[in-house]
């Protein structure tokens, strides 16, 4: 029984993602399918965020910077080389005259996200608490500002469009599950366990010889690489993107998903992302009119976003530790095979 606990913990979030993908691809109208694909990409983004925030206990507002870097690098580099000089004439020649394939763009996104996170993390991971939160917010502000105005590396203040829309159900699901696998592997690794120990009791962890700065930096870098990768998935889903789509709104939304699900477990990250996404889709559809007991109800446009905010607030009030309480999944003991064990 003990040997299989980790398997339950891993399979639960994967099963949720797979279930969401299969169910929505089979039974949801084709008009709504992109919303469910977005939900799956959100799962990936939140799981990537969790790798740092969940394991270290340090709140970062900066992870969306790496999503942004991944999204724009993957986007810019996959626009066909033939059309690029026309739509993005101000790019550096190296970026303007070359294009890469979808898969390589995801690799590039992950690599740049990781490198950027590592570079930023070296100084910043010395900070903790509020100072860390605000410093990472400042990183996001810088990333957004540079991406919005420096038109040698991207579209500047205009919309980046003509990006191949390669993220389908298949890619989104495989991508999200890959992020979950890596996140889970890290969490159970020696490094992951050391960082979680430092989260619970920094003084004791230091006394036990754990280098907290180094462990946070590893998690930050891994989280940055995964975030970059999810940015690549995201941009290939959207097909066109502006910088404000990977800025404060996405930061608040993904952090809210993580906390609503349960900040200190991978299952919490996945459950939070799915729950908030489903509420958003459900309430969004009510704006197009739903029928309840023969009454047609049609909410005015914009109601759904207000509704999602209310739902988030209610969940936080009812379950301040999140839906999962920050715990991983385990079968109730009555379902598990009874076996006598001696401790």
């Amino acid at each position, binding site marked *: 029984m003990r040997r299989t606990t980790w398997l339950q913990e891993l399979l639960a979030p994967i099963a949720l993602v797979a279930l969401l993908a299969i169910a929505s691809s089979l039974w949801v109208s084709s008009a709504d399918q992109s919303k469910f694909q977005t939900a799956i990409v959100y799962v990936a983004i939140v799981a990537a965020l969790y790798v740092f925030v969940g394991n270290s206990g340090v709140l970062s507002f900066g992870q969306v910077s790496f999503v942004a870097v991944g999204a724009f690098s993957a986007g810019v580099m996959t626009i066909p080389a033939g059309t690029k000089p026309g739509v993005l004439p101000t790019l550096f020649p190296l970026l303007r005259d070359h294009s890469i394939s979808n898969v390589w763009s995801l690799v590039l996104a992950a690599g740049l996200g990781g490198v950027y996170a590592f570079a930023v993390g070296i100084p910043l991971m010395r*900070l903790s608490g509020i100072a860390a939160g605000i410093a990472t917010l400042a990183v996001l502000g810088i990333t957004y500002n540079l991406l919005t105005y420096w038109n040698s590396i991207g579209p500047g203040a205009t919309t980046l469009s003509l990006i191949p829309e390669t993220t389908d159900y298949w890619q989104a699901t495989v991508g999200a599950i890959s992020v979950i696998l890596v996140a889970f592997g890290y969490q159970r690794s020696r490094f992951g366990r050391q960082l979680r120990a430092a989260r619970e009791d920094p003084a004791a962890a230091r006394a036990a010889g754990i280098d907290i700065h180094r462990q946070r930096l590893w998690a930050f870098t891994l989280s940055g690489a995964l975030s970059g990768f999810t940015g690549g998935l995201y941009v290939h889903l959207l097909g066109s993107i502006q910088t404000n789509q990977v800025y404060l709104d996405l930061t608040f939304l993904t952090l809210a998903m993580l*906390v609503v699900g349960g900040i200190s477990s991978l299952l919490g990250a996945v459950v939070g992302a799915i729950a908030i996404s489903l509420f958003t889709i459900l309430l969004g559809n009510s704006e197009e009119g739903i029928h309840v007991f023969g009454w047609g109800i049609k909410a005015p446009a914009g109601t759904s*976003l207000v509704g999602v905010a209310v739902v988030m607030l209610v969940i936080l009030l009812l379950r301040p530790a999140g839906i999962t309480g920050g715990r991983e999944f385990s079968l109730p003991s009555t379902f598990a095979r009874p076996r006598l064990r001696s401790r």
Partner: protein
Amino acid sequence: MNHVQALIDAIGEGAVFALIAVGIGLVFGVLRLINFAYGQLIMVAAYALAFPGNWPDAASIGLAVLAAVVASLVMERIAFRPLRTADPSTMLVATFAIAYLLQNGALLQYTYRQQGGLGDSIGTLSGLNQAVTIGSLHIRWVTFLAIGAGLVSLGGLALILTRTSIGLQMRAASMDFRTARLLGVKADTVIMAAVAISGVLAAVAAVVLSISSTSVNPTTGFQETIFVLVGVVAGGIDRLVSATLGAFAIGFAIELVGTELPNSGATPFTSNVYMPSVIYLAVIVVLLLRPAGLFARRGQRTVERV
């Protein structure tokens, strides 16, 4: 001579930032919470200011103050109070949810009003945008208003904090809430007082910001609040004075350096569009050198929540 003008404008901008900083700092003091919904509180006050249309200006301003105070008290009652003992990240995310709620609520009301354009006029108050000419200086009335309102509000607050019992209790609570409660300081009362005062300050900031942008929209106050949040932590959020100085410095720098730099040019750091990057970079450097804040006392540590 126009350097003098830029200086005065910069002081005006710094004054608005200082007002917002004090509103955020007061609530942080008693709740150990950075209220990310503070910008939306300013927005609510701004809409209340615009709502009456042709009332006398004083009445519109009164309504704005009332709306901000009520909104911030409601926020405290429904979200902050039940989550006071929860993990700090939970309360923080609750403020995201409130911000999201208010901002989308502001968008939604345009649907109900069936008004296409976003943005409400603030009526005769916008006349304060006219400039007075003193020698070669052209200074807008709203700049004087910002500086005056900043001085009066902060001076009034200083009197409340040092001369009244509730002010003393607020100061004690923000230094050591547990001991304050042992002395009979009522947690709910002190927190509500701080939250209500922060509402008044939000309304004052809303009046100045709405006048200087001449209209009100769902993002009124948002960008300023993000800069102020960064500024108060860089200044040192554990003391109201250092937090205010940090925010003032950022407002001052944005306005002063912003107007002196060219406003076009895409290469990084050649034009004022990169001003935010410069500010954020400076903040990061400050935090790395002095994590408790630039103006914090040496050896000061962050104290626990209630």
